[in-house]
């Protein structure tokens, strides 16, 4: 079979898996939020509410697709697709299992981590442009916040990766996971790990950094004017981004598909470990959302510039010095 057919099949499978994960991550989030707030969560559609995602999809598809008079029609319509496209294209380079032959990834890119950083940073354009093109005040405030927020956390996030890169000596995601066969990087790079999981919340625009949506202040933030499927696309993008940052955290800091706690003797396929780790991380983000109130706009920026950036820099310098004098 020619390569491009294999890649096409892999992409189709991956797309299905990611979209299904989105649907059930959303249901799981509503369930977990419900339980933590002493509610049962959605349980009316199908057993345990298992068909709720289908009901939601049907609702979103049937809703009217509104475009405000003052909106910039082209960019307004394009913005959700920018969000979705960047959210999905990340999966082109994420390896899901022990690779080498390239079975578990669509493309094994040498500069995989740089590709991830570049693409995930583009995601904010969907938010910024969508809010800007809506021609309405609350979306505009949301998109301005999105831009400022991105500049504040992105530096700390990128710097938190570099410690890992120094330890692994490669930017290939495969290589980084293989370098963690003995020690997962969250042990030697604990500070970097903390910085990443903090900035990852900001990256996905979720509580406590959901300033671009901030429903108590900005109605619904950047997607106030969006309805029906276009809103649905933003919604999918948010959850897929959540999945993405969980994948990245697992790959970079939690040993990817390596078995935890010396359970490697069980011969469980690496994919299972990978999925379990991602599931834990998804739960962690839901847990955070149920617990923490939203940051104030200026405090997020102060936190990004005055805490995350200096600490990440310090972490980088210390790692570099240790590796330079003591070797890997």
């Amino acid at each position, binding site marked *: 079979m020619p390569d491009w057919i294999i890649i096409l099949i892999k992409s189709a499978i991956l797309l299905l898996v990611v979209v299904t994960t989105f649907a059930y991550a959303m249901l799981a989030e509503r369930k977990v939020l419900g*339980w933590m707030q002493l509610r*049962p969560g959605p*349980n009316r559609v199908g057993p345990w509410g298992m068909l709720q995602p289908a009901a939601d999809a049907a609702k979103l598809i049937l809703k009217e697709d509104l475009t405000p008079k003052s909106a910039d029609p082209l960019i307004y319509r394009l913005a959700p697709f920018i969000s979705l496209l960047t959210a999905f294209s990340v999966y082109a380079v994420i390896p899901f299992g022990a690779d080498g032959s390239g079975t578990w990834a669509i493309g094994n890119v040498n500069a995989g981590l740089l590709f991830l950083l570049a693409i995930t940073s583009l995601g904010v354009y969907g938010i910024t442009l969508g809010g800007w093109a809506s021609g309405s005040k609350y979306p505009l405030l949301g998109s301005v916040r999105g831009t400022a927020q991105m500049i504040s956390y992105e530096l700390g996030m990128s710097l938190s990766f570099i410690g890992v890169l120094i330890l692994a000596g490669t930017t290939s995601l495969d290589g980084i996971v293989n370098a963690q066969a003995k020690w997962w990087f969250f042990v030697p790079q604990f500070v970097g790990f903390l910085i990443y999981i903090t900035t990852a919340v900001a990256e996905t625009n979720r509580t406590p950094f959901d300033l671009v949506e901030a429903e108590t202040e900005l109605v619904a933030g950047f997607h106030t004017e969006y309805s029906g499927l276009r809103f649905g696309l933003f919604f999918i993008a948010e959850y897929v981004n959540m999945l993405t940052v969980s994948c990245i955290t697992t790959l970079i800091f939690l040993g990817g598909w390596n078995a935890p706690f010396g359970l490697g003797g069980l011969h469980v396929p690496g994919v299972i470990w990978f999925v379990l780790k991602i599931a834990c991380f998804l739960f962690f983000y839901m*847990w955070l959302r149920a617990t923490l109130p939203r940051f104030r706009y200026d405090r997020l920026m102060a936190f990004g510039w005055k805490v995350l950036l200096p600490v990440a820099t310090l972490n980088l310098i210390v790692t570099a010095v240790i590796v330079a004098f003591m070797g890997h």
Partner: protein
Amino acid sequence: MRKNLYNVGAILRGLSITFKYMFAKRPTIEYPSVKKQHAPRFHGLHELRRYGDGKERCIGCELCSSACPANAITVIGAENTAEDQVSPGERHAARYEIDELRCIFCGMCEEACPTDAIVLTPRFEMADYRRGAFIYSKDRLLVPAEAGVGTAPDERPNGIPSDLGHVADVKSTVDITAGYGATHRGEILKTERRGLAG
């Protein structure tokens, strides 16, 4: 620095609280498949009762209508005749209408009624699409002859009719198992009103 560390502690404490509540017992009653247990004397939809021989209790005296603070009750009385003895004695209610949208469910009609004819039942599901449907006349208020005589509030076994559905296992404001007798006022009323009811 110290304050920041304190904040981290606060976040961890918050996370532990939300995690703990994830496994706590939820107080949700999944209405409508499960219903809350009402107090025995819950003020719901009205009911016109009968005597054991099937005769209507209402004598058309209009005391409920005069007692009603919301002017929700309309009673038009008529004479009983020898051929058509609707209620014991001389008069009965030819028309008896309650506008349940006006009604404030205070129970003053029940208090005013000299023959214990009008009572408030624990039924509360009266939703409808038309305003006209909320004017309940005798055809819906009166207990059907084949359905017995109706239950006085102080005679209700557990405070809720059995046909209302599955009742939630949630403690109400009164002790349900003890029923009406759980309250002191209930005991008094039981002895006071038995005479009339009998």
